[in-house]
């Protein structure tokens, strides 16, 4: 897959609050009028929906060329690769029957077809940029709607297979890196303040997934009874507060226990650059400390964008893509360790000196 060569723009590590916010995302759930929802649609109907969407999204989005992938033609490894890259959901990766995804160059836009709903329109950006994400998602939605009529109910809004998405069909989420809050156990505070206004806090790959590498996703749960702007504002305000807490947590950690913090970060760097076999869980855990160390200028290494990229590239499907063939887990751990060593050595900077 040609995607393996490039990297999603959302991983570039810039954008507002990029010391703590990895990426922002807006996603709209839509169903094509006149077709049963995905669960009750025949394979032919599902194929018809795919070709209608492909037709509308044939031309570039924001001057970015699009490519359309047929999920049934992809290997399990390729599907997992797209999932690790946040371009498709677990449900689409593991589902069956005709389904697809249209991705724009730079991986900024992705439109999943025949997931839980006929369409899941997604815009993903680096850093804290919910408004930009929404504007682009809104525009893409308008463009698709100009060619395909969507199911809409005068009272209930956009109709979705599951009533939890009905109304706006909008889910906005922000991926945060919160190592200090996890270490000081203040992450509970995050859960509580989010819950109070009905926001969800989840791990890296959505519902039920663990907070691997101290990554947390904050998103709205309600989709009905509020405008898109209101939903975005609620998520933005909570995320702003969490970002402040994390910054304060890092400062406090540094001021109260500098030597322990330096030890933690240096050990993480040491293990990553000298291990001979390493699981993706351990890699995530150690990269989390290194990322925090880089953001706090505790390691005179390179910018955090490398670390953002390593988080994704050391995941099982990405690693095997880089290596060029499927590997059993044991071999994967060995390949991962040697690859990490190489990448970190290359990028450590000329005057690298652990403090």
């Amino acid at each position, binding site marked *: 897959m040609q995607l393996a060569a490039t990297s999603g723009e959302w991983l570039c590590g810039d954008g507002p609050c990029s010391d703590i916010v990895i990426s922002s995302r807006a996603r709209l759930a839509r*169903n094509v009028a006149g077709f*049963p*929802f995905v669960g009750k649609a025949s394979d032919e109907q599902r194929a018809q929906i795919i070709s209608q969407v492909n037709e509308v999204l044939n031309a570039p989005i924001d001057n970015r060329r699009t490519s359309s992938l047929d999920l049934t033609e992809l290997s399990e490894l390729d599907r997992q690769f797209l999932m690790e890259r946040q371009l498709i959901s677990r449900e689409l990766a593991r589902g069956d029957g005709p389904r697809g995804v249209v991705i724009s160059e730079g991986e900024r836009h992705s439109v999943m077809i025949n997931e839980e709903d006929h369409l899941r329109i997604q815009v993903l950006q680096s850093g804290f940029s919910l408004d930009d994400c929404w504007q682009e998602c809104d525009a893409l939605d308008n463009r698709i709607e100009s060619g395909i009529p969507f199911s809409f*109910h005068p009272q209930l809004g956009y109709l979705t297979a599951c009533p*939890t998405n009905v109304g706006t069909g909008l889910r906005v989420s922000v991926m945060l890196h919160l190592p200090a809050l996890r270490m000081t156990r203040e992450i509970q505070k995050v859960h509580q303040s989010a819950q109070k206004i009905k926001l969800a806090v989840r791990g890296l790959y959505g519902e039920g997934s663990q907070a691997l590498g101290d990554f947390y996703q904050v998103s709205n749960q309600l989709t009905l009874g509020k405008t898109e702007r209101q939903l975005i504002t609620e998520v933005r305000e909570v995320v702003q507060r969490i970002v402040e807490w994390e910054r304060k947590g890092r400062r406090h950690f540094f001021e109260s226990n500098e030597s322990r913090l330096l030890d933690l970060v240096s050990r993480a760097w040491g293990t990553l650059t000298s291990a001979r076999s390493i699981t993706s869980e351990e890699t995530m855990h150690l990269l989390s400390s290194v990322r925090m160390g880089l953001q706090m200028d505790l390691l005179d290494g390179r910018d955090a964008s490398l670390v953002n990229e390593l988080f994704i590239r050391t995941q099982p499907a990405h690693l095997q893509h880089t290596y060029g063939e499927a590997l059993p887990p044991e071999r994967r751990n060995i390949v991962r360790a040697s690859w990490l060593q190489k990448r970190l050595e290359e990028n450590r900077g000329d005057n690298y000196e652990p403090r």
Partner: protein
Amino acid sequence: MKKCRRCTKTATFHVTEIHAEKAVAIHLCDSCAREYLENNDSPATETLTDLTSKLDQLISQSAESEATCPDCGTTFGEFRENGRLGCAHDYTEFLAELLPLLENIHEDTSHIGKRPMRTIIGPEEQAMLVQLRRQQQRAILEEDYETAATLRDQIADLERQLQGDDTPLH
């Protein structure tokens, strides 16, 4: 996997009660079970009666509606099981049952956000499209290609009609 009766999330709390000589199963998700059944203020005995009456209330509401969508054949019971509706018309067909559920999930039942820029396809046109498509499917299965072709043209006509008209139907 059973879905929560109050909000359609995956249920983790299951009780079976005998109601009107029938065993009735109640499924709730974690947060609904906590929110709905817990009452920390009252003493233990009171909590127990309280809990029983709340369960009774849930059970009496569960005199399951036998409603079936004429367009896609989904029953409300089926939706209770898997949390997914079958087609857009289900929202009209099961509206009475869905409104309290939407109130639990979203604390609201009216959309105030974005609306489609162009024609909103009304429920009648939607139902007609679904019906025509289903007839077309059947014709194909029965290898009645002549009927299938006629139906295909009818679908295309209806689609064109709906797309060309810029005035909202509702």
